[in-house]
């Protein structure tokens, strides 16, 4: 039986501090998470990623927790407050984003508030941009 066209891109990134690199890109026959609302989020804090076409129109957006962190959430010893955050001595790691494989999609943009925990309420700005029709290096 013919399957619906539900291809997604799995994008694997490495980061060290503010440097984010696209390590691999894989096309997979699977459904991506649904898009959040596409209206502008200018001035809002948080973390999200977007697909945009060549004209800069947003095609897909997903809000999620910032995977690029100077801190880690860990179990605390307090039963009534079971979780807490601790500062990391280094900020590096790997994260994965799933996005729908859209024909018109040209760029992947990552937006983030400043990474310092105390500045998480400041507006998110463009953190990294990748040209999906070119290589793996960030455009800027």
């Amino acid at each position: 039986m013919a399957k619906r066209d539900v291809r997604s891109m799995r994008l694997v990134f490495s980061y060290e501090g503010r440097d984010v690199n696209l390590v691999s890109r894989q096309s997979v026959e699977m459904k991506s998470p649904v898009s959040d609302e596409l209206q502008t989020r200018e001035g809002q804090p948080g973390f999200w990623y977007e697909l945009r076409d060549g004209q800069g129109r947003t095609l897909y957006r997903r809000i999620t927790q910032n995977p690029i962190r100077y801190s880690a959430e860990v179990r605390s010893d307090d039963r009534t407050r079971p979780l807490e955050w601790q500062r990391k001595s280094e900020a590096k790691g790997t994260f994965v984003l799933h996005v729908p494989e859209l024909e018109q999609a040209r760029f992947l943009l990552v937006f983030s508030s400043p990474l310092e925990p105390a500045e998480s309420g400041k507006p998110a700005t463009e953190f990294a941009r990748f040209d999906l029709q070119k290589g793996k290096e960030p455009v800027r």
Partner: protein
Amino acid sequence: MSTADGAVIGTTKIVDHGSPVDRFNLVLVAEGYRQAELGQFATDAQQCVNRLFGTRPFDELRCAINVYRVDVSSTDSGADDPAACGGTGATPATYFDASFCNAGIQRALLVNTTTVLNVVNSQVPQWHQIVVIVNSTIWGGAGGTIGTTSVAPGWEDIAIHEMGHSAFGLADEYEYWAGCGIDTDRNNYTGGEPAEPNVTKGSNRATNKWRDLVLAATPMPTTSNADCTKCDPQPNPVSAGTVGAFEGAKYYHCGLYRPQFNCMMRDLSAFCAVCQRRIRQTISPYLADCYAPVFCGSNWRLVCLLRRIGYLLLIVVLLIFAWIPSVMCLIKQLLFRIKHCGKGNTNPYIGL
């Protein structure tokens, strides 16, 4: 401390609700289990599944989710426990090289994510969320799309909480960062409206982010913190489960509100109504609109042959009306009956 220290034994689909192309696929991976301990891993994985599907709203969304168990054996049990963080100094030889004490944090338990990706990409290419279960009873874990957790008491809830962040974009609803009485810069939130759906600056009934869930009789804000230099010590003044605006959320004592007094994203209790809604919005698209029929198989080849012929004739007739969704579903169910005529089907959750 590498892939030479074990082997990928295989993958079992422990919750099968249909094709991975259409479902949300959760993958549980073994780390630090010796070959003889993989039975324990199967038990731990099942425990995680039971907890997940015992948690609202996953109980009602279970048909949208597949769960896979990837059995990986290691030479030794457990994870590295560096003495630098006060650990035992143990360095067991494990497949994904799990270690506590990452970036100076004793309970930050990490694995070699490149190796995890290589294994899971080949075993379950359609994965959405990976949780690596590490065979250690020392508290530890890490969030993210490739999360890790040890099997210390209560680990299942922490794994679900971390999925709340990585799979559903939910914010923490607790009002401290390092801890109540420890933070000195968490008194008043002065930033913009948070992007996450379960925390807000707005306690105004008319404009609040989740106002459609707030009853007219519920005061807004529902609680206010009388001393913004501290975590709010007051008990819940309204009945459990009431949706309102409770001051103290996302690491701030004041200025940010959460939807309910308790929540999985605050204290590992049940998800609040707003978080449940976000989870439903994310997972519902993975629900099938058509499910496999439950029926008895037949050991008699002639019976099966006759049934198959009958079903095929019926399908030919129904094809005229295949544009009607319910008829298309019926055709899929008949094809499923043809394919599984001999063994039948007892699982009502297989999406077609």
